[in-house]
Structures are given as structure tokens and as C-alpha cells.
């Protein structure tokens, strides 16, 4: 039996916040740094998404069904592609049309809602599902939670939502003697299958590929292939950020040549068969895996500490989710949308103080100079969200809303006249997107 190789790439971009001070919280109701987001999206599109998609599309066509791949693309990324780089979306659609690509389901906003609010979690998963259907005409069967955050409860929720397969990190200390290269079943769940990420092989590619101190440097397609072939009859799951190709590891390091060479050789090899996660559903599980405390694919700890490691992060998350019910009560779509964008786990990741000073991964991804700045910015935004909420609640309590609009400040006018402004704002954005095409 050939080794089953499952490649899955994560595509995510958050709505980064602009510099937002206590003074901004007094008057400014727009939180996002459109210019920075546009620059980042367009630069990564040019360095990574477009060339990688082009390469993989060619390979899929060339090997007619022998090469398959899976993507998980967040809603916030898709929204920004629509706005700033529609050609990226088009190239993903072209990949979807080949039939050799699986799209995974996840939370639309790449959030930690699974840990904080079941209702919000289900809403976001549903929204992401709708998005996949609309954008790629795809009905997902596999669920992967934000950052591979996983525990028994999340597996149960995914199964209840009708998913057949769920992905998680193959955390060594939980697996013990067991191998991540088999299909498992989550403890206490029904039929849903559990696929575990092969940390070693995934990180060889994502983190060690360009490390000159690594004994196996440089990593060649043949070497990498040999490692996988050696595993024999197994299901090897290599899950990495899509940005690994061309963004984290630059084109100059020959990462695209590597990817091309590796897929070419793997597709031709008799000892390897590409599969996508949903195909693993037909495999017989090798056993049950019990993960009561949440794991993730982040850092060396493989737990929640990248997002909820310090008190500021916990404080920020609690403050955010504490607003959920009231915001939903107002039924104000703009406010709700802003709040949902704030649920992106990235905002909490930026507040991590874990490796501060070491110049580690957290610093690389953060748009802030320090986690403390990130925290202040985020909390100031939440402060304004609370203010808007209060104004809306007051306005709702009165009978004649027009009076409120006349009497109060600018901000209220904006909010009450939401329906008009929203439509007006949407149209030019689409036009711009078309122009860029």
C-alpha cells in the first residue's frame, strides 16, 4: 500500500486595526487600517498566492487526478481578496473547478469563538459555509478549527454540524507512543474521523526549510519524499500556512522550485498517493484519541498560550465576548460586523508576551511594536464599541429616532442612518475591485 499524503494549506488574513488611541475612541468609529491591509494583501498576493496558485493549478492539470490538495480560506481573507486582489479569488476558483481541491470549513473570522460562545461559533461556521458555497460552489465536509485548536468538545460540535472529518495537531505528549500518521476517532464522538498533523514533517517545511543550522539543510524534494515514503502504509498529514511559499520563505530560497519538484516526484512515485482530508473518512480508525484540554498548532507548547497566555489576552477576550449578546440585541449590522471582525484570533496573538525580546515568530507577524501597544489599541477599540452600544441602546429606548439624530453628535447620525450609508459604501468598493481586474 502506498503512503497517503494529505497536503492542506491555510490561507488567512485578518482585518488589521489602525492606530487607535483614547482620543480616537471619542470620535472615530472606523477601526481598520485599510491602507495597511491593502498593502499586505497585495504584496502577499504577488509573492505567494498568485504564483503558488498558478503552480499548483499547472501541476493538477498535468497529473490529472494524481495530485490533490486542500485549502482552508477564511472569510476575512476572502473579503479582502474581493476588495484588494480579486485576481487571487479568481485563481482559487480556477483551482476549485479542477475537482482536485478540497475546501475546509472553519470559523469565518478565524476566531476563538469555539472556546467562548457556542452560538457565535455556529454562526461563524455557517457563515463560512455559505461563503464557500457562494465563492467556490463547494460544500465542505471537513472541519478545521482556528489554528487547529481542538478538544473533545469541539469535535462533538463539529460532528453535530454534520462534518465527517476534523483536523487537529499531532501533539507528541498526547499521542505518546501512537503515531500521528493514522486516522483516529475523537473520544466520545460518533462517526467523525480525526486527522492529525505530522508536526515534524510540516515544520521541516514551514520552519526549518531555510534554517542553515539545521543538519538536514538544504531540504531537497528527493530527501523530503524519501522521509514520507519511509513511513510506508500511513496517512501523512502535512498542514502548513500557505504563506510559507513565497512570503515566510522567500522566492529567492527556491521554495517554489522545491514545491514544484516535490509534487512532481510525489505524483510520479508509486509509493505515494495524494488524498484530501475528506477521503480519509473512508479509512478505518486506528483508535480513539482523548483530548480534554485544548491543543493547537502554535509555538512549541501546542496549546492556547499564543492567544490566551497572559492576563491581558484573557482580559481582552473576555471583554470582547462579554459584548456579544448586547450587540446582537441591537441588530445593528455595521456594529455587529465590526465586532465579528474583532473576534479574529490574530488580535489576541499580537498581545502575546511569550517570546518578547527573542525576535521570534510573534514579532514577525505582528503589526505592533510591542504586545502592550497591541493590547491598548484593542481595548480602546472595544471601549468605542461599548460607547456605540450605549448610544444605540439609548436611541432604541426612545420613540422618535429622528429626534436623536438631530440632537446628538455626528457618530449617532451615521449609525442610525446605517442602511443608506452601508449601500453607498459597498458600491464604490466593488467598482474599485473591478478596476483593478
Amino acid at each position, binding site marked *: 500500500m502506498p503512503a497517503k499524503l494529505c497536503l492542506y494549506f491555510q490561507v488567512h488574513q485578518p482585518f488589521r486595526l489602525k492606530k487607535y*488611541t*483614547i*482620543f480616537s475612541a471619542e470620535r472615530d468609529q472606523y477601526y481598520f487600517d485599510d491602507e495597511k491591509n491593502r498593502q499586505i494583501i497585495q504584496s502577499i498576493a504577488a509573492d505567494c498566492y498568485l504564483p503558488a496558485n498558478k503552480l499548483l493549478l499547472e501541476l493538477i492539470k498535468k497529473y490529472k487526478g494524481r495530485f490533490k490538495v486542500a485549502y482552508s480560506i477564511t472569510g476575512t481573507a476572502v473579503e479582502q481578496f474581493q476588495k484588494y486582489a480579486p485576481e487571487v479569488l479568481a485563481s482559487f476558483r480556477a483551482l476549485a473547478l479542477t475537482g482536485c481541491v478540497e475546501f475546509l470549513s472553519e470559523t469565518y473570522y478565524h476566531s476563538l469563538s469555539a472556546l467562548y460562545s457556542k452560538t457565535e461559533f455556529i454562526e461563524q461556521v455557517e457563515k463560512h459555509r455559505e461563503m464557500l458555497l457562494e465563492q467556490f460552489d463547494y460544500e465542505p465536509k471537513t472541519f478545521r478549527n482556528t489554528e487547529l485548536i481542538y478538544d473533545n468538545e469541539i469535535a462533538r460540535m463539529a460532528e453535530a454540524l454534520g462534518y465527517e472529518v476534523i483536523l487537529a495537531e499531532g501533539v507528541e505528549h498526547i499521542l505518546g507512543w501512537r503515531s500521528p500518521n493514522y486516522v483516529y476517532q475523537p473520544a466520545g464522538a460518533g462517526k467523525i474521523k480525526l486527522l492529525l498533523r505530522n508536526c515534524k514533517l510540516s515544520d521541516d517545511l514551514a520552519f526549518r526549510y531555510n534554517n542553515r543550522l539545521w543538519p538536514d539543510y538544504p531540504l531537497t524534494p528527493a530527501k523530503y519524499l524519501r522521509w514520507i515514503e519511509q513511513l510506508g502504509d500511513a496517512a501523512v498529514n502535512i498542514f502548513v500556512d500557505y504563506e510559507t511559499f513565497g512570503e515566510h520563505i522567500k522566492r529567492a530560497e527556491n521554495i517554489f522550485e522545491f514545491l514544484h519538484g516535490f509534487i512532481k516526484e510525489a505524483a510520479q512515485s508509486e509509493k505515494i498517493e495524494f488524498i484530501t482530508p475528506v477521503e480519509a473518512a473512508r479509512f478505518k480508525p486506528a483508535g480513539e484519541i482523548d483530548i480534554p484540554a485544548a491543543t493547537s498548532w502554535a509555538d512549541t507548547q501546542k496549546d492556547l498560550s499564543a492567544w490566551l497566555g*497572559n*492576563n*491581558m489576552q*484573557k*482580559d481582552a477576550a473576555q471583554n470582547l465576548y462579554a459584548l456579544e449578546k448586547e450587540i446582537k440585541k441591537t441588530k445593528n449590522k455595521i456594529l455587529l460586523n465590526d465586532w465579528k471582525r474583532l473576534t479574529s484570533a490574530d488580535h489576541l496573538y499580537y498581545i502575546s*508576551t511569550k517570546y*518578547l*525580546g527573542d525576535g521570534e515568530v510573534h514579532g514577525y507577524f505582528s503589526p505592533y*511594536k*510591542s504586545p*502592550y*501597544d497591541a*493590547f*491598548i489599541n484593542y*481595548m*480602546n477599540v472595544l471601549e468605542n464599541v461599548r460607547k456605540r452600544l450605549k448610544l444605540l441602546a439609548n436611541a432604541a429606548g426612545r420613540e422618535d429616532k429622528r429626534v436623536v439624530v438631530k440632537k446628538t453628535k455626528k457618530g449617532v447620525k451615521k449609525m442610525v442612518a446605517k442602511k443608506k450609508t452601508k449601500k453607498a459604501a459597498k458600491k464604490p468598493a466593488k467598482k474599485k475591485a473591478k478596476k483593478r481586474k
Partner: protein
Amino acid sequence: MLGWEYPPVKSGGLGTACYGLTKELAALGHDIIFIAPFAVTSEKSKHLNLLNLSQYRIKQDSISLKDRILSQFKLTAEMKKHVTYEFITSLLNPYLSEETYRQKYSQELLELGRILRARKNFSKIFRTIDNYEIEYNEHDRSWETKQIYGENLLQEVYEYAIKAERIALQYDFDLIVAHDWMTFEAAVRIKHLTGRPFCAHIHATEFDRTGGNVNQLIYELEKLGLAEAEMIIANSHFTKDECIRYFNIDPRKIAPIHLAIDKDEVAGEHSDFDVAKSGNEKFVLFLGRLTMQKGPEYFLRSAAKAVKFYPDLRFIVAGHGEKFSALVELASALKIADKVFFTGFLQGEDIRRVLQKADLFVMSSVTEPFGLVTLEAIKANVPCIVSKTSGVSEILNHVFKVDFWDTSEIANQMVAIMRYPSLAQTMRENAAREAEAYTWSWTAKRTAQVYERLLGCGKKERAYAR
């Protein structure tokens, strides 16, 4: 070791630094003779031989210096030219020739020293030329009323130099160490007199103190000291860069070694004071000299902005200096006079107490070569906002780093620290852990390495000369 401040007599970070450094150097087995212009022996000076120069007086000699030299030595025409300066007169009235004193007098004296040195019996001759003696007066208490940086600072610096030079001859030592410009003249003299290597510690440059509006004389003294020193120890990369930029010093001879703090120096439980506080007010502390360099006005302007968002804020301005009255006026103009407390100059136990009272420490310095007080604040469990233009900002991650002029950002951070206990707590814990690495023992070890390298070189050179 030559220094201007030594605790308990001190005005700023210099004395603290001298204490911390010498204590650990002594622990490493170094014998230290510390020459200070005014000093009181105390618990803190047990580990070294502390000499209080105020207790030495200069004896005046009636015999003309010029005559004496002429009568004793056969000097060349060139050398005669150098000694036409009336040493004694200028000594007693340094202000008469202050402008030219450094450029001509000292340079030529040094030149003379070099020539004499070439004759190998320089120290003997030197002793004769400078025919003044100093006497020790144990009961002289007049100095106790003097200010450490008095009006006649330059004169005192000058007296310090010649007294120190004299005293140095009474002791045997391997290395001359001097802290900042006040003692550089003395160090250079001793160096030329004894041929021992000289290591300069630089804690602040004239550019830091004045913001570019330098006193030419002090600048020249600094430049002389830095140029003559075999090795320079700067308290941060920031200071090192200044030495290179303004004094044109070879970067290879400057070693940046960050300062530190002792664990037991500022100890205290933060929680103790939460109880003592009345009401909900939170205290933001400014601690430092009230001078342009320390940027106290930016602190007040930030305070005025922050208080609008957090009315329970109170501000403590601790320190004295030329800007005091201007700051009091500014506080009134900003309408926060009722929320700002000026404590005047604080030291020792008072600093400890004020730090324990503080919920936040702000160092809004325009330039700050190191900023030792930040480490003290961290040790006292106070979260900090520090200016980007400071030495400590190089070594700390768990503090806010801000542009001193960006008062809105400082206010933003002040309010956030007060509003969100999780932020203040995370900063406190992480900063304390981070600051632990900076102990005096670590600083002293690295300093001693520099010294040893210098002594190694010095010995070789001397051996070679023989």
C-alpha cells in the same frame, strides 16, 4: 576610582551607579580607592577606601613656581615657554582664565609632562613643579554645607583634580578609573604622572545634559578625558553612539555596559500601599531633575490630556531643578494644579516610599543616557513608560517606549495602564523578570573584564618600554 558622587551624598544616578559597581567589583576581589569631592563614610562605603577630598586643603607656597623650576633644571627654550604660566595664580583664580584655561594651560602642562616623561624622571620633576602640598584636616566641617554641584563647580572640579593628583601619589594602584567629566582632568593628570592606564566611565555627555547647548569648557574636558582614556565604558549604546558622533572617539575602545540594580536596594510589596491609599486615585510618578534634559513639561502635558479620560489620576513630580517654578506655572496653566504634587528633591528612603505609592512611572526624558531610576521603579513593581531616547529602552521590552514629545501617546498609555489591571500586572511581572538579568554583579563582571584587558595591555606596554 575617581567619582563625583558617592552615596549617601548624591544627586542622581551617578552615585548609585558608583556604589553598585564598586560593591560588586570589591566582591570580585578588586581593591578600590574611591576619591570623592565630598563624601560621608557609611554602611555603603565599607567595601572600599573612600577618600573625602574636602578634608584636604591646598597649602599655598610663596616660592614662585617658575623660579623653582628654572633653578633646579636645565630646561630648553621650548619648555621654558610652557612654564611661564603662573600655576598658583590660575589655580586660585580659575575663573580669570577659564575660557583659555583648558585649551592652553592644561594642554601645555600635559605637553610638558610628556617631555619630562621622556626624560624618565618625570614624576620627581612633576612633584617639584606643582609645589603645593595638601594637608588633611579631620575636623574641617565647612564642606558639609556645600552643594554637590555648586556654583563654583568648575573651580571645585579643578581643585579636585590637583588634590586627587597629589593623593594618588600616596597610594599604589594599577588602574585609574574616572566617572564623567568632573573627574577626567584628575584622571588624565594621574595618568601622566604615574603612567598607569586610564579607563573612563561615561554616564552622560554634555550633549545629554544641555540638549546641544554645550558649555565649551565641559565639552573640552570630556573630549580630553575620552581621548586620553585607554578604554571607555559607556552605560548604553545610546551613549556610545554619542561618544562617536560628538567626540570622534574610536568605536573600538568604547565598551557599552548597561547599568543594573540590586535586588535589595528597592524592595517592597506593592500591595501594602494600595491599602494606605484613600479613595480610588491612581498615582503617576515623574522622578528626576527638573531640567530640560528630563522633559518634565512633557510629563505635565501628557498628564493634562490623560486626566480628562481618567479623572482619578494624580501626578507626583519628584525632584528639583531650574524648571521648578516654570513647571508649577505650567500645571496651573493646564488646569491640573490640584492634581499635581511637587515633592522637591528626594533620596534614599523617600524614593522608596514614593515608588511604592506610584501606580505608574513615566520617564519622559528628552535624552537619557541610561535611566537607572527605571530599574528601581521596576524593582518596586511599578509599570513604566520610558522615552525611546534612553539607555534603558535598549535593554527592556516589557515597558512602553514612547517618543517624549508624543504627549497624546503617553496619555493614551497612562490611561490604559490605569484602566486595565491586566495590562499593569503583566507589565509588572514580565519587567521584573527581565530586569533580574541586570544585576550589579553582572555589570561589575563585565566591567572587570574590560579592566583586566586594559591592565594586560598596560603591563605589556610597560615591559616593552623598559
